[in-house]
């Protein structure tokens, strides 16, 4: 039985007799007008097991997921097996499972574009209007490129942006910024470095995705929403952004060793920030939970520097259901459950995530702690230029493009090429990659 038909039948009944209906079927009482399975479906689902392929950035995410799974199991009588995977082998393991016919039912993914042909068509089970429950533009990466059907949902929105060490700023007598540009950011960093004797003035995650934020501020982008290479038209601005960062690294005012010495592996200077050896740490909101736990100093998220544009750079993780699932309707409902308002709000509060649901963004999530930080990120999310979402039109290529940018920056930092050459090579690379799409 399709939930879609179910929905139209029950919509009125639920909105009229909300509490009674909820109590009768034993569903969570938080939100109204959601999808509710029928008794027949619940009977069919009882005892069935689905697998949730999952990874977590923080303990809070794991704990909340486990709690929500317990709720779901009570709700439906089905069982959910939670598979926790290390982030670095997320795609490898999933590929291996899919290849062996061992697909999970639902997955939390970083690169949903790689699994387009394995993903379940959610509109079949959750209705065509389901996509509208999420922030406009955020479902681009999980929309099937040809059928245009929804094949996943954005689960959490990430926004890139800077953190600062408030204690160090105070000690140096530098004011905590409420708005600034890159020149001011770097000047502030250097001033604090000088006054406090910290090792570095600045640090940024070793990632093309993070660097794209700086480029975006200067008005430089790589791919637009029509899958076109737009780097050539913003070459000089891109060079400027890249040079700002690589100059700091070359001068070892940013952790040069960490970036150069780790080859193709990801590395984050979080430890350096925690050791109070850099006053500014450019990362993103997913760090809040870990920093809150481990930082022995006062820190704060501050607005992104504004040049031509302000705002951050979007990212995030997605939930997908797989069409190899033996219980696709149950899988779709589990996905729906996790991404539903009550559950998403709970997860956002515990794990310091930003919501992707339109209703939660409108309402605003009340964070118990670090509310000021989350406000800054949410504000920056709103200021992010639309062009930043362009690269999501080529989901199978984003990883490649970001990695190439990162590797080219490594070469600039090591003095092997100039920022100008790096941008030219990056542009050529993007052209080559886009060409593979046409094949």
């Amino acid at each position, binding site marked *: 039985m399709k939930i879609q038909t179910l929905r139209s039948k029950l919509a009125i009944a639920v909105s009229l007799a909300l509490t009674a209906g909820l109590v009768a079927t034993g569903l969570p009482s938080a939100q109204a007008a959601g999808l509710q399975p029928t008794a027949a479906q619940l009977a069919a689902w009882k005892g069935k097991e689905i697998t949730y392929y999952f990874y977590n950035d923080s303990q809070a995410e794991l704990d909340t997921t486990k709690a929500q799974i317990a709720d779901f199991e009570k709700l439906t009588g089905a069982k959910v097996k939670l598979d926790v995977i290390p982030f670095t082998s997320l795609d490898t393991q999933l590929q*291996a499972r899919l290849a062996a016919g061992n697909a999970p039912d639902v997955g939390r993914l970083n690169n949903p574009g790689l699994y387009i042909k394995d993903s379940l068509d959610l509109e079949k089970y959750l209705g065509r209007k389901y996509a509208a429950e999420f922030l406009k533009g955020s479902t681009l990466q999980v929309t099937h490129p040809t059928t245009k059907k929804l094949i996943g949902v954005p689960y959490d929105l990430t926004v890139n942006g800077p953190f600062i060490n408030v204690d160090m700023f105070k000690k140096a007598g530098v004011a905590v910024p409420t708005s600034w540009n890159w020149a001011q950011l770097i000047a502030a960093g250097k001033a604090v470095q000088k006054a406090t004797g910290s090792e570095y003035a600045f640090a940024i995650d070793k990632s093309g995705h993070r660097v794209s934020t700086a480029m975006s501020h200067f008005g430089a982008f790589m791919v637009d929403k029509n899958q076109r290479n737009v780097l050539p038209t913003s070459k000089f601005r891109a060079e400027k952004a890249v040079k700002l960062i690589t100059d700091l690294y070359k001068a070892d005012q940013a952790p040069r060793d960490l970036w150069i010495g780790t080859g193709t592996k990801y590395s984050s200077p979080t*430890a350096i920030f925690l050791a109070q*050896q850099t006053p500014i740490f450019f990362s993103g909101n997913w760090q809040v939970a870990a920093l809150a736990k481990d930082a022995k100093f006062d820190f704060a998220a501050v607005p992104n520097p504004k040049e031509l544009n302000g705002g951050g750079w979007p990212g995030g993780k997605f939930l997908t259901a797989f069409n190899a699932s033996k219980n696709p309707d149950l899988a779709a409902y589990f996905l729906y459950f996790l991404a539903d308002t009550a559950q998403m709000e709970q997860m956002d509060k515990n794990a310091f995530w930003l919501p992707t649901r339109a209703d939660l963004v409108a309402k605003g999530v009340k964070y118990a702690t670090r509310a000021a930080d989350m406000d800054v990120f949410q504000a920056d999310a709103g200021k992010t230029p639309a062009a930043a979402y362009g690269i999501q039109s080529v989901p199978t290529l984003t990883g490649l493009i970001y990695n190439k940018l990162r590797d080219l920056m490594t070469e600039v930092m090591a003095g092997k090429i100039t920022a100008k050459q790096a941008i030219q090579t990056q542009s050529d690379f993007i052209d080559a990659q886009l060409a593979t799409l046409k094949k």
Partner: protein
Amino acid sequence: MSKLQERASANKWSSISGKKPPSTGAIVRTTFLLVMTFIILAPVIWFVLSSFKDATDLGARPPKILPTRWAFENYTEAFQMYNYKRYFMNSVIVTSVATLLTLLINSMAAYAFAKYNFRGRDGLFVMTLAMIMIPLQVILIPIYLVVSSLGLVNTYWGMIIPAAATPTGVFILRQYMLTIPDELIEAARIDGAGEFRIFARIVLPLCRPALAVVAIFSILWRWNDFIWPLLIAQKEELYTLPVALALLNGQLVVPYNIVLAMSVMSIIPVLFMFVFMQRQIIQGIAQTGIK
């Protein structure tokens, strides 16, 4: 004193000069050994000390040798938060069962190669040896596909069986068995003993040194192996220690101090075992007469 008596009074091991400990030679030797000992031990000791430092100490410049505060919570956190007991048990189970299996089937195969003449024997043996040279990464996914089609994914057996047919094990055991006199086996056959009985009751007990060596190598390798278990163990309850370590190391935000603690904890059992079995290991390698 005659030279012979001098030599007899010197240590049981062969110092080829035959004289009492010479002066400059011994000093040079001992210095060399001490330097090498330092190069080997120092990094390990540093590592262990680092595992007791908290995040601030770890990032301190210049580095401190001793932690300012002994951060035992690195260990307690690793223990509690990451289900350490479970991972430890899994490592123990996989390592011990795998070693027993390896010993069994490797010795059987070695026996066949050493003491029998059958068609294809040499070809099979060379093939066995050549397998050492296949890079694991290339066959990783095909092995996974095979294991999965056999339904062994996510099982202990899936972690244990595929790698049990170690070429080095067969090689070492065969070398050793070649030195067992054929007459012994012939005599047993004349006495009417069955083939398997001969193998189990006569040959195996004689192979103890070689078995010890193969066992040690197997234990070492299995205990530290993470590539294969990482692929096979798809639920947390099956994770072995190295998998858990790789998991920690691969997170977006790496808790480095806990990684250190967990690494140290994973070394301890192996270290323990080695300290106790050191003599057997060395003797075993010596007696297998790798010539």
